């Protein structure tokens, strides 16, 4: 069974540019979550999809972040425009009850 897959694994962009991260959850998992770890600090929740609907987006830091999950399959997280403080590792997880399975993460560096 394929796990949660994230693209790209690394991204280096300049301040002010746009970056889109993608997450492919485990097939059949209705729940998809985005987390991030900034500057080696704790892993923080960003938002939660149930199928294509946003169940909880209380962790989204500001309106420069936009998450979508069209068709309830893969999800994208767009940062526009990126700022220096957005640098960190962005994790995606999916679940169908019983604990979440995480992807490898995308390491984003904004310079």
């Amino acid at each position, binding site marked *: 069974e394929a796990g949660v897959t994230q693209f790209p694994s690394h991204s280096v962009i300049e301040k002010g540019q746009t970056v889109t991260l993608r997450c492919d959850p485990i097939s059949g998992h209705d*729940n998809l979550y985005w987390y991030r770890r900034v500057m080696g600090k704790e*892993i923080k929740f960003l938002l*939660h999809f149930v199928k294509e609907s946003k169940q909880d987006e209380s962790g989204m830091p500001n309106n420069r972040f936009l998450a979508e999950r069209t068709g309830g399959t893969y999800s994208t997280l767009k940062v526009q425009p990126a700022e220096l403080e957005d640098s960190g590792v962005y994790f995606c997880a999916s679940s169908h009850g019983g604990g979440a399975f995480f992807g490898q*993460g995308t390491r984003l560096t904004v310079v």
Partner: protein
Amino acid sequence: AQSVTQPDIHITVSEGASLELRCNYSYGATPYLFWYVQSPGQGLQLLLKYFSGDTLVQGIKGFEAEFKRSQSSFNLRKPSVHWSDAAEYFCAGTGGNTNAGKSTFGDGTTLTVKP
């Protein structure tokens, strides 16, 4: 507020020695609790989870954890550490929903294994 605390930022043990990583939680009701491991260059991998029932939980890679309500703890243990166990370990909790993906994480404990 709900929280998970890992008191130890960094632990060093010798290969073959026993290991215990501490985790304390603060929730209004009994949470669901998890331990994850992140090896260098890898994603987060679920080691084990506690939902209810037996308070001693067995996980993968020879790890186990014990839920102790009286101490609000969920410490991770392994009887004999291998060099490949060197990684960062995260304790996480969620407020008792079976939809357990939205979790609160501890700050992580980095494990170094000496030869």
